[in-house]
């Protein structure tokens, strides 16, 4: 404890912090440093262990693993390009749908379209979507969504089949149902975080917009959106990250087929779904390949997050000058 050179100052109230105050200070510091260290250690350990287990596969398959397309356990040929493609394609589609919908809902909930109480109820309902277990989404996709969209999908294929997105018919599981369910799954994340972003825009900014004579549409599009942009981007990055790693619902809905197709109705596969469906019966060599695939998924997620952070920083600098 520091000595107190002011001890002689005559006062009835002022005095130095007690030993207990200093002790609590030290304790708090130790706890937060400890928590940070645990996180760091955990991440390092996971990456290290994953790398160690994937190492034999990395040696034997090399970088070719990342851009070859067969997954044949008998022939000991492993390549995950279709899964990388499927992961990115399904997540991008979900981000597009869920992102637009989520931001639109956030606008609807925050820009005085609704009475406050109604909008709170509505927000709770949207957030409840996040509480539905992944496997329930999968079942819902199989028993409700696929039968629901199949006639429309097949009609699109029959009449606009020359268009790459509609290049195949939808016989069951496939990219479209998977991406739709993913979109619904990331919707609450995107909506909730965007709502907070819009709520953080000070009232005086809204006043300034309307004071210039904007219509509501102009105020939202030209003023509120740029003001909330860094928060909305954070919402989109989080949503995208969630879509990249989603496993159960996709394993049930995407068809687990090792192919690369632009068609929305073709079955495909994702990294997470490959891992989930192959591990239970995998032999030692395949496990090593799967570890390699897991490492690739981790790298993709990391890259997406870094890229997202970079965009957010750029947006913050552009719009807010920070």
């Amino acid at each position: 404890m520091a000595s107190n050179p002011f001890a002689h100052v005559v006062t009835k109230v002022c005095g130095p912090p007690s030993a207990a105050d200093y002790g609590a200070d030290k304790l708090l510091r130790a706890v937060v440093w400890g928590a940070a260290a645990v996180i760091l250690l955990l991440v390092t350990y996971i990456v290290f262990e994953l790398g160690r287990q994937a190492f034999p596969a990395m040696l034997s398959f090399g970088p070719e693993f990342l851009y070859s397309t067969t997954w044949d356990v008998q022939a000991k040929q492993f390549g995950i390009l279709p899964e990388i493609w499927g992961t990115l394609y399904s997540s991008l589609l979900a981000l597009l749908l869920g992102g637009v919908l989520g931001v639109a809902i956030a606008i609807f909930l925050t820009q005085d379209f609704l009475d406050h109480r109604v909008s709170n109820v509505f927000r709770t309902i949207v957030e409840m979507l996040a509480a539905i277990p992944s496997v329930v989404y999968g079942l819902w996709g199989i028993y409700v969504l696929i039968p629901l969209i199949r006639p429309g999908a097949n009609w699109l294929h029959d009449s606009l089949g020359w268009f790459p997105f509609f290049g195949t018919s939808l016989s069951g599981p496939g990219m479209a149902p998977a991406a739709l369910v993913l979109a619904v799954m990331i919707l609450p994340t995107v909506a909730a975080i965007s709502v907070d972003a819009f709520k953080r825009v000070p009232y005086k900014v809204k006043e300034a917009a309307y004071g210039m004579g904007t219509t509501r549409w102009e105020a939202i599009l030209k003023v509120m959106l740029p003001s909330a942009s860094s928060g909305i981007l954070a919402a989109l990055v989080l949503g995208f990250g969630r879509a990249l790693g989603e496993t159960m619902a996709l394993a049930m809905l995407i068809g687990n087929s090792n192919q690369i197709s632009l068609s929305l109705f073709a079955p495909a596969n994702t990294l997470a779904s490959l891992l989930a469906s192959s591990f239970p019966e995998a032999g030692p060599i395949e496990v090593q390949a799967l570890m390699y695939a897991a490492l690739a998924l981790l790298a993709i997620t990391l890259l997406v997050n870094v890229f997202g952070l970079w965009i957010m920083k750029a947006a913050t600098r552009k719009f807010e000058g920070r």
Partner: protein
Amino acid sequence: MNATADAVTSPAATWSIDPQDTVMDCRLEKIFYGDFLAVRNSIVPIEKNKITGFIGPSGCGKSTVLRSLNRMNDLIPVFRFEGSVTYHGQDIYDKSIDPVLVRRYIGMVFQQPNPFSMSIYDNVAFGLRLNRYKGDLDERVEKALRSAALWTEVKDKLKNSGLSLSGGQQQRLCIARAVATEPDVLLMDEPCSALDPIATRQVEELMLELKEHYSVALVTHNMQQATRVADTTAFFSVDISQGSRTGYLVEMGETRQVFEDPQADLTKEYVSGEFS
């Protein structure tokens, strides 16, 4: 006239000018926030090519009155207005009038600087683009920034965010944004409260320039400012007799008369600094 005249009882509130010289004829009978009567019975003409100053103790409803003049208060759900505000022969509170339209012609500068999250240039060009201005944007932006006494400070960083400026610079940016579209009437709510004395004087000079072509309504807590720039001054006070706090116009007249020869005792106390 109409029924509104009967409601106005205070003799000083009947001060009037030649209708030819008024750009806005504001007859405020009752302004409510929910059940709370914030302002009553005040007739405040805004003169063409003049600066009309609003003074009075805080909470007496100066901002409320000012924000009623371009329907800014319509943003507040509990706000309710009784009376009329006639602008170029048209009551802006008429059901057929879109408040958005009113605000295109009657601009506003707020007490707190509130620049948009965009570049300095885009902030100033905002209203020009909104009104689909076809001429030279750069020229207009420069002119507006010059008149807000900000040009020399920002001319090399127009692409930087408006939010990167200091508080006083932000306020001048907001003034530039408001004057860029050359609104017919400019409402200013204590625009200098965030500014240092030098910037304050520059903004006051701007107001004096503006009134050559436009009309200005200015709320100020600074009585020296009122005497320096306002042609006409309206003094508001609070009536606490009914247990509520309702603002009303006590006296309005030429600035010199209001400060040197006030008619009402309340005004006399306020301008001489005796107000408690």
